[in-house]
């Protein structure tokens, strides 16, 4: 199956700041998480996919087209929800969504019907007749999502859709994103700096770090069914990590209490136990835990040091 979007050695700078460097990845159907800390280049990459930014180098293909050449023929097949607020506060939600459906080529009569349908689908019933300025942050995020879906795009780009939401609203939004990717069959690229939330809703991930792709692929493949060794001590986890690293074992101490070693090998476990004894640490827990994307990111950070 051809990729929905593909980037090959894409580069983009803003003045002397290198925003993206040698970015290569393929976007497949389903929900893909675009992960990275603030400033990692997520919004820049989304802008490149939309064709509103021009890459300094490399090539991009979205839905089989070059975003810079295709113009509106591509843009009307993409749905985009920006990170920040970009709508006038005195416009009613249904009017705004209808208007942006027309801006993406949906005839007026269909746009009116679809605006109501999609607002209902994202959980805005009677609220859809309210001005956006009177809505809560969560409702405004849903309006943003609705205008990105109203024209039935083949690719939906969501830039930090959980920004500003409280934990309950965040869970609701993530469930909604998951549902539009599965039940409604949209291909979604969701950007976030929160690893846990992306892991929950994504089939695939692209991890950006300092403008580079640190890892990409299916979440299940990346995690690979690993059961890393988790060591909890009263104190001295950092010293243990140093000792293990000196012996060739990658280990991440999140603080001075807990250490993660990404291996289920018995010899590695023996080395950990030997290290605990050697450093005379007080052991609280030693077990095989479930790997998370957060573990992968931490390990990459260690690798780059």
């Amino acid at each position: 199956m051809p990729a929905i979007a593909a980037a090959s050695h894409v580069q983009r700078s803003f003045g002397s700041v290198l925003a993206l460097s040698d970015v290569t990845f393929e976007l497949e159907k389903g929900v893909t998480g675009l992960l990275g800390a603030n400033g990692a280049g997520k919004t820049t990459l989304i802008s490149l996919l939309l064709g509103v930014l021009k890459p300094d180098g490399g090539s991009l293909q979205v839905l089989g087209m070059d975003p810079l050449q295709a113009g509106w023929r591509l843009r009307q097949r993409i749905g985009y929800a920006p990170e920040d607020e970009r709508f006038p506060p005195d416009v009613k939600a249904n009017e705004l969504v209808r208007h942006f459906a027309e801006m993406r080529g949906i005839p007026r009569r269909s746009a009116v019907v679809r605006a109501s349908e999609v607002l209902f689908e994202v959980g805005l019933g009677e609220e859809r007749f309210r001005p956006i300025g009177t809505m809560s942050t969560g409702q405004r995020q849903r309006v943003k999502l609705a205008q990105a879906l109203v024209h039935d795009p083949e690719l939906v780009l969501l830039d930090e859709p959980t920004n500003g939401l409280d934990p309950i609203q965040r869970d609701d939004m993530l469930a909604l994103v998951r549902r539009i990717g599965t039940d409604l069959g949209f291909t979604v690229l969701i950007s976030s700096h929160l690893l846990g939330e992306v892991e929950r809703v994504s089939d695939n991930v692209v991890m950006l770090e300092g403008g580079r792709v640190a890892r990409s692929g299916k979440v299940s493949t990346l995690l690979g069914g690993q059961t890393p060794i988790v060591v909890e001590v009263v104190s001295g986890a950092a010293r243990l990590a140093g000792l293990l690293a000196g012996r060739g074992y990658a280990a991440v101490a999140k603080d001075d209490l807990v250490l993660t070693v990404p291996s289920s090998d018995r010899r590695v476990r023996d080395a950990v136990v030997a290290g605990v004894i050697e450093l005379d640490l007080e052991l609280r827990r030693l077990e095989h835990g479930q790997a998370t994307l957060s573990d992968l990111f931490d390990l990459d950070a260690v690798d780059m040091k």
Partner: protein
Amino acid sequence: MSARTPAARPAGQAVIADRRFQHYEGHRRGDMYSFAALLWHSILWVLGFKRSARYKVVPGIVIAIAYLPSLVLIVVAEVAPPGTPLPDYAGFYQFVISAIYLFVAITAPELICPDRRHGTLRMYMTSNLNPTLYVAAKVVAVWSVLAIVTVGPVVIELAGYSLFGHGPAGFGDWLKTLGEVLASGLVLAMFFGTVALAIASLTDRNSFAAAGIILSFVLTGAALRILQGPLKAPDWVELVNVTGLPILMIDRIYQAPTSLNLPTWELAAAVAGWVVLGLGVLALRYRGEGRR
């Protein structure tokens, strides 16, 4: 993808229609459709349609002020005996020019400043539109909205005069006068609309833009009065008078007597030059919005 086909059912049996989200399988229109949709949306927006009452009040009052003199003139035309001299079409604008300035200062900023201030402009650039189509829609919108106060009242005046026996003699003259009325109104709308939109494009605050527009009109008018009065400047300085130039052009369209010793083509070229300059400012201001 998930289009649903109704299953065969006995006649008269009720069904529950699924009104939930469905994938769109209809026709998708191109960039010109979105241009027209934005144009129409902008006209309604600036007049306050589908917005709260406070956005309707000011345009409504200004439009009423612009139409009032023509309605009064119609009443006068009805009661005045035949042959009574009535204000001509060129002279009509002296009654409403202040309302036109005010309308320009309100409408032009409202058409473009909120899009930039709220970030909606960037959203338009991710739709079927590009900077050229966006600016074109806004320019045509400001011309259309201004035509409500520059063309409409004079057309009504012409209709009223004609109805009560003070209009042009004969159908040919009537058509010629109608042409002059439309041309004059459109010159005013295009000139003031483009210049004001260019000024408004320099800021994202409506109030700053409105102040800039009013100040431009007031200051150039005042400066020209000083230049032509005590300083005895030549006639050509009128060509840079954004307040008076279109009025002088209207006098030429109606072939009204004037003391200005400038050929009509120079006036027309100056009006066109200002419009092109305004469009150039808009093009420069928005050229980087589509792709950076």
